[in-house]
């Protein structure tokens, strides 16, 4: 699913990632741990195509990151979903519209969109909040909307960048359970977090530790 070889990245003269090498198989649950400033977010942004690869090679869900054209980028993003710490939901739109967005972009028929969105939101216990605006939701609910939007397209790979960063312990654990469920259904999960207390909660998870831009597998 993901293969990274000798990946390095710098912002100017500041080397954020140094000679990173790892491989993630399909269906794995990976924790990318490390303190703030270790380079976790930068690595995820590279894997999602948000910033271009500078040195090395990266293959994500069948896409070669070093040869990614502007036409291929949207296709990569339809295969690889991402969840952020700050949710990135459209606050002035409803829960339903937010979750339906990726399906509309893909040109899915309206009745199919309604069925899928309904199923995903029910799975996340959000079925009574379809028509509420996202700005009317709590932090945990908004994060669930972001997750729903990420998984409604049934991605091969889900990248999560500090998804529990703005949530309390209880919500964080619930979120982890949701991720575990998706992982059981075959979605590869790469979850970046500086919260080491979450690591033991997912038994089958593998940990990649990042410190000062250098990777060590724990």
């Amino acid at each position, binding site marked *: 699913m993901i293969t990274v070889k000798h990946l390095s990245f710098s912002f100017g003269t500041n080397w954020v990632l140094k000679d990173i090498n790892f491989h993630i198989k399909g269906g794995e649950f990976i924790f990318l741990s490390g303190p703030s400033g270790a380079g976790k977010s930068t690595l995820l942004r590279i894997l999602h195509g948000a910033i271009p690869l500078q040195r090395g090679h990266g293959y994500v869900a069948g896409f070669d990151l070093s040869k990614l054209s502007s036409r291929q980028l949207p296709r990569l993003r339809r295969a690889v979903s991402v969840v952020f710490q700050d949710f990135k939901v459209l606050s002035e739109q409803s829960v339903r519209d937010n979750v339906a967005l*990726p399906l509309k972009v893909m040109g899915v028929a309206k009745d199919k969109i309604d069925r899928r969105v309904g199923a995903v939101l029910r799975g996340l216990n959000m079925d009574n909040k379809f028509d509420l605006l996202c700005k009317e939701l709590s932090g945990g609910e908004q994060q669930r909307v972001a997750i729903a939007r990420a998984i409604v397209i049934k991605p091969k790979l889900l990248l999560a960048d500090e998804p529990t960063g703005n949530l309390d312990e209880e919500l964080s654990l619930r979120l982890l359970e949701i991720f575990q469920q998706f992982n059981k259904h075959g979605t590869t999960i790469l979850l970046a977090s500086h919260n080491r207390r979450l690591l033991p909660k997912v038994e089958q998870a593998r940990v990649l530790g990042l410190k000062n831009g250098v990777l060590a597998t724990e």
Partner: protein
Amino acid sequence: MFIILRLCRQGLRELRVNICSQVMTLVAVTLIVFLGAMFILLMHNIKIQLYEDQGDISFELYWDKTLKESEIKRQWQMIKQFPSVSSITTYTPNKALKALSKTLHESVSLDWLKSSNPLPPTAVVTVKLTPHAAKKMVQEYKSRFEGMKGVKKVHFNPLHAQSTSSWISILHRLVWPFTVVLAFIIGLVIGNTFKLSHLSKREELEVLKLVGASRWYIQFPVLFGAGIQAILSTFFALLLLKLTQIIFLDLLNVPPIWIEIEFLTFEQIAYMVGLLTFVSIFSSWLAIRNY
């Protein structure tokens, strides 16, 4: 084709989001276009008045008295058909004598001159000059009239032709550069207004990019919406302009001014719509080109 229609519908739907912001943009652009259109209307009417007041020249033609009257009358008919001839006033020798008598307020009897009338057959021909070719036209008509059989003398005021060219030249040299600069400034203001109006869309465009929307899917509805807003703004601005014209129509249509304010031509309106639509779409594209 179907995808383009879908994206157009999406663009129209997006105009309903943040309706306050869209209305403010529409009002701002409408007022700016209205001000620009007022200036164009003013220049348009100044130009019309200039052409009407300065754009005519009168030639006085004097025929040989020995030429047959039928031949002279035939030539008068021919002159009437010349292009750009707006009017011709003709005088047979007797008619010329009567006109002279009238100018002397009939205080002096000129009946004794009837048998040996010294006045030649005369015509006063008014020609409408084309502003850019005034001098050339004057020379051409002078040569044409002088070449006509029996025409002994052609008289005109050369300073009049000069004056016409000068006024037109002033209009073009002074006004057109000013118009271009004004159009540029208006374009900048409108462009900036559209750019700022898209700030509120940033969040949505970021998310669209995130979920894998293609560049076309993101940009086309925004550009289409901007085009629609530009057309609507121009429409409302022209409505306001028409209302202004109706209100002020008779303001200058009084003696001795007699100036009727004319509305813009279809060509001018088409240019306005085209230019504004281009500016709005281009400035919107500048605002969202990285998405």
